[in-house]
Each structure stands twice: as structure tokens, then as C-alpha cells.
């Protein structure tokens, strides 16, 4: 099939800055990817690598001070950044929906969840309030809230964290969006609930053939849900690959470190393996590879020149070491 026609969301050379007075901090430095219909892209990285900021920028929801300094975000070939307020509003929630990190604070505390669901539907369609309510009940059932009809009249504080995230998911799915952006949707939940929510998102995503950008810092989640993985480090994409390839054969030393520090029940180790050092503070001056200070293979060149993104065996990697030792990674 023609891959170009199938691309629903494409991010091109995205740069995002935070401005504090005269001071500018660059948090995302040229991110590019393409998302195909019905596929799931996982964006993985540590805190401060720019993953959430990138997610918010897709809906133009950057907090005050944040601005997109360069690049384009194309939804079905149309640049989101050049849309008028009303065009953008029509896109948000209807075509591009978002689930946020913290379900405890993401719902309006003094509005019944029924109203919050119904207003979403009514903002984009001209159906009657009654129809919208029926749809809301249907959606709540779909995400696994029992007694949906009665619970429509309850307030967020009457639901548990997991249930609230289910409601957020129902809200995102109100209008059958074609792209779902999930910003660490399970981070604020405890582990057993995490698995349930993930399963639910995966099921609903498959059912409606919705494309999704899944932001997470948890690699274990990625294996389950994603088709493709993009690893962010210090505002750069350092590796991008099909999920199977990435797990079977991580190329970038950072990805290797991440996978190496996953805890396995089979291994019996005294210490949890970890990557030495700390991620760079956002806005660290651009010089060389951002991972060089923590990289076991770092050479002189790594500290001086930023490596380009290059394709190797189906991976796109930004690393001098991989470039020079292609044999060690290939077969």
C-alpha cells in the first residue's frame, strides 16, 4: 500500500522553547516522525526529555511561556500550527483526542461527569442533549464503569483514580477521533490498575482502528501496545524502530541502558542495573551527543559533534559509535 497516503499525523523538525523573560530554554530540538493510520507510536524517555511537551504541542496546548520555534505538525496534510482558533477547536477532541497523566486533577471537580461528557459531544455535533447523554452512557459502559446511567450524575470525587482515567478515556473517545494522544496515562495509577487501563486502551484502539501517540517512561508498557518506538533523550530523538526490532536489538547505548535496567523476575541480582549519571537539564547548550557524558562508549568525537540520525537495519539511530561499529550491531 502507499505509505504516504496512509500517514495521518506527521511531525517535522519540531523545536519547542520555553521563555522566561529574556531567557530561552530549548526543550525539543528537531523532532520528526510520521504516524500511520491505526498504528501506535510510543514515545519513550526520562523526565525532562521533552515527551510531554511534544504531546501538548500537537494540540497547541503548551503552557504559558512555551512556544514552537520551528517545524510543522501536519494532520492529514494540514498544518495544525497555521489553523485559526475555531478550526483548531473543531479538531481538538473530535479528530485529535488526548488523555492526560493525572486523572485526579484532569476532570473538573465541581461538574458531574455526565455534563463533562455531554458537553464534549455537543461541542462538535448538533445532536440533542438526550442523544448525547445516551452516547455518554454507552461510552461509560464501554470503558467498564458499572451502573453507568446513575453514575452520570456523580462528581469526579466519587470515583477512584482508575475509574477517573476510564472516564477520561471515554471522554477522549466521544467522537471517534482518528488520533489519540495518551500522555503517560498510567503513571499516576497503581500497578494493577495500570495493567487494566492499558488493556482497555489497547482494546479500544484496535476496535476503532485509531492511531495513537503513546507517551511513557515505562518501556515495559511499550512492548505491549506499540507498533513503533521512538526514544527521546535531551530533546533529541536518539533511536526509532519497530517495537520488535527495538527490543530484540537495541542499538543506541541509551536504549540499551534502558532495556538493561528493566527488572526481570528470572534474573537474581543484588542491585538493580541503572544508567550512571543524570539526564541533561533542559536547555543544556547544544554540543556533541547529549548522551555522551553518560555513555560507556563515548569518544572524543561524541563530545564535539552531534551525530546525525542514520538508518541501520531498520533502526534510525543517532550515534557515532553505532555508525562506526555497524558490524557489532548488525548480524
Amino acid at each position, binding site marked *: 500500500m502507499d505509505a504516504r497516503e496512509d500517514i495521518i499525523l506527521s511531525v517535522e523538525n519540531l523545536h519547542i522553547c520555553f521563555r522566561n523573560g529574556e531567557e530561552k530554554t530549548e526543550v525539543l530540538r528537531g523532532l520528526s516522525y510520521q504516524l500511520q493510520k491505526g498504528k501506535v507510536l510510543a514515545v519513550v524517555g526520562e523526565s525532562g526529555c521533552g515527551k510531554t511537551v511534544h504531546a501538548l504541542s500537537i*494540540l497547541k*496546548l503548551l*503552557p504559558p511561556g512555551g512556544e514552537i520555534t520551528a517545524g510543522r505538525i501536519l494532520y492529514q496534510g494540514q498544518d495544525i500550527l497555521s489553523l485559526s*482558533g475555531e478550526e483548531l*477547536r*473543531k*479538531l*481538538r*477532541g*473530535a479528530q485529535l*483526542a*488526548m488523555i*492526560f497523566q*493525572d486523572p485526579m*486533577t*484532569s*476532570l*473538573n*471537580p*465541581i*461538574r*458531574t461527569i455526565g455534563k463533562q461528557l455531554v*458537553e*464534549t459531544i455537543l*461541542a*462538535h455535533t448538533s445532536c440533542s442533549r438526550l442523544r448525547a447523554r445516551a452516547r455518554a452512557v454507552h461510552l461509560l459502559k464501554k470503558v467498564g464503569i458499572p451502573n453507568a446511567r446513575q453514575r452520570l450524575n456523580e*462528581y469526579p*470525587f466519587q470515583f477512584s483514580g482508575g475509574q477517573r482515567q476510564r472516564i*477520561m478515556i471515554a*471522554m477522549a473517545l*466521544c467522537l471517534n477521533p482518528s488520533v489519540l494522544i495518551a500522555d503517560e496515562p498510567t503513571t499516576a495509577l497503581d500497578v494493577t490498575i495500570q495493567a487494566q487501563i492499558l488493556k482497555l486502551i489497547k482494546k479500544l484502539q484496535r476496535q476503532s482502528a485509531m492511531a495513537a501517540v503513546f507517551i511513557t517512561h515505562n518501556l515495559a508498557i511499550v512492548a505491549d501496545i506499540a507498533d513503533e518506538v521512538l526514544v527521546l533523550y535531551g530533546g533529541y530523538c536518539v533511536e526509532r524502530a519497530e517495537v520488535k526490532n527495538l527490543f530484540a536489538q537495541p542499538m543506541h547505548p541509551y536504549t540499551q541502558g534502558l532495556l538493561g535496567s528493566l527488572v526481570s523476575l528470572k534474573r537474581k541480582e543484588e542491585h538493580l542495573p541503572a544508567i550512571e549519571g543524570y539526564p541533561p537539564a533542559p536547555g543544556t547548550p547544544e554540543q556533541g551527543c547529549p548522551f555522551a557524558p553518560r555513555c560507556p562508549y563515548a569518544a572524543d568525537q561524541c563530545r564535539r559533534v552531534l551525530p546525525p540520525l542514520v538508518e541501520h537495519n531498520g533502526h534510525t539511530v543517532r550515534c557515532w559509535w553505532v555508525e562506526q561499529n555497524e558490524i557489532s550491531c548488525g548480524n
Partner: protein
Amino acid sequence: MLRYILRRLLLLPLVALGVTFLLFFLTQRLSPEMRASLYIKDPRQMGALEEVIQKYGLRDNVFKQYGRWLSGALQGDLGYSHSANMPVSQAIKEYLPATIQLAVVTIVLVVFFGVWFGVVSAVKKDKWQDVCARLISVGGFSLPIFVLGLLLLMLFYGKLGWFPPGGYSVSTDVIVHSPAFHSYTGFLLIDALLNGNFKVFLDVLRHLVLPAVTLCIGSFALMVRVMRSSMLEELGKDYVRTARAKGLPEHAVVYRHAGKNAVIPVITLAGIQFIRLLGGTVIVETIFDYPGIGRFGVTAAQQLDIAGIMGFSLMVAVLFVLGNLVSDVLYTAVDPRIKLSD
């Protein structure tokens, strides 16, 4: 909820008891002779001083005297106010409705403009609208109410002649006190409408405008500030981002979502300000010659009208408790998370 209200109402007598006893105790600091002299209008009758002291038992123990006042108060007799030349209870009945009327109109203006300016100020933070709203509110806050009142009087009565300087028109006074005019509520605005007398209604309204505007400018500054900071806080919250991400129009995000949450602290403030208005419109009532309860309280204090002072403070205490209760109940109406526990 009902039990909560009942419990609070049960506390009311205790508060009233405390306030009145403290005040009564303070008035006892005046010697019996001084208090007795207040009953005597003519200096030539000073010889009757001892007689008055005996008659009213002014030398008795504080508790005994307070007990006498209290038993009277419990039977609805708050004593005779010589500053108002009528029984205290009648004075309250006559003057309080006018003040409540003024306070209600004022608080409605304050809340409406305070919330509106506060929201605009927050949404347009650091833009010219915000600067204007802040300038107006700081100006209103720092201008003493008597200066403001006099300025408004000079402008709208003296120069433009749009509004009357004070006191109801003679025709209104005549109509209101005629037997044909039924006093249903004591509130002239409502009574005039109920009597179908539109002329009286308009006259009363015209007399309300300047005092209400003066009071409003004085207290709305605080409202704007509270609303602005509350609104700024709410606008930064996650659920506002969710509302935008859902594709709601901006006015729905600002008013329906952030605004409703931001208005919660304003309710407390409005409650406090309303009660303060009831007891503290003295200056405005004096400037605009408005027949309200504040003026009665001040005259009573100036003339050492002990019965008047006691009655006035008892009324303020009761209103204070009731006002707080009302704002507590209002909370539950706005915020579902708050349940008044039994």
C-alpha cells in the same frame, strides 16, 4: 444538612448572650450617677438623680442588672431608645429594612462587577484590560468612602442633577405613611411594587443609586483582587487544559469551567462584606441622609443610649451568625465536594 443548620442556630443564643453581656459589662464602667443623668433632660432636675438610680436599680450587681435587661429582651422588650425617641425594637423594625435594601443592592453590584472585572483581569493578564481593572480597583480601595461619597454627590447632584441628595421626596413620604399604602415587607422597593405604585418605586430607586454605588466602589476592589487571583489559579489547572483539549469554545472554558470554580472563595468574601455592609453603612447613610440602621447605631453610641447600643449590637450579632450560615449553605450549592456534616 438540616441538622447542621439547626445546630448552628442553637449556637445563636450563646453568641448573642456573649456579645450582649460583654457590652453590658462595659457600660457598667460608667458610674451609676452618669448613667442616671442620661434619663434627665433638664439640668434643673439634677436633684432627682438618686431617685432615678433607685428606680432603675442602677447600683445593683452587674449580673442582676443584666438579668433584668435579658428578661426584658426575651419578652421582646429591648428598652426605650431615647436617641431615637421610640422603643429599640420599633427603631430596628423601622430602620433595618432600608439598610438591608441598600446592602442587597450593593452586594449584587459588588459581586457582579467584581466577578466580571476579576475574570477579565485574569484572562487578559498584563494586557491593558487587566491594568485598567487593577487601577480602578486600587483607586476605589484607596479612596476613603466619605471623599468618594461627597465627590459623587457633587458631580451627580450638584453639577448634573441626575440624582437627589438624600431623604425621600415629600410626596413619597406622604404616600408611604398614608393608610392606603400597605407595608407588606418593610422593604420600600418591594412594597412599592406590591402596591403597584411605580412612582414611589422609582423615587426609592433613585435614592438608592448613589449610596449603593459609593459602597460598591469601596468594597469591590477586594472582590476583583480575590476573583482575579482565584481565576488565575484555576486557569492554570489541569481540568482547564482538558476542557480545551476536548474542543470546547474558549468562553465555555473560561466561564463554565474555570469561572465556576474560581467563584467559590468569592462567596465567603461576599458573605462577610454583606454583613459588614449591614452594620457599617454609617458614613454613607449619613452623607446621603439615608434612613438606615447604621445611623441609628451611631446616634445611640454618641448619645450613650445604652438600650439603643445593646439592641443594635444584639442585632448585628444575630445577623452575623445568620449571614455566615447562609454563606456556608451557599457553598454546598456551588461545590458538591462540601457536605455540611451533621
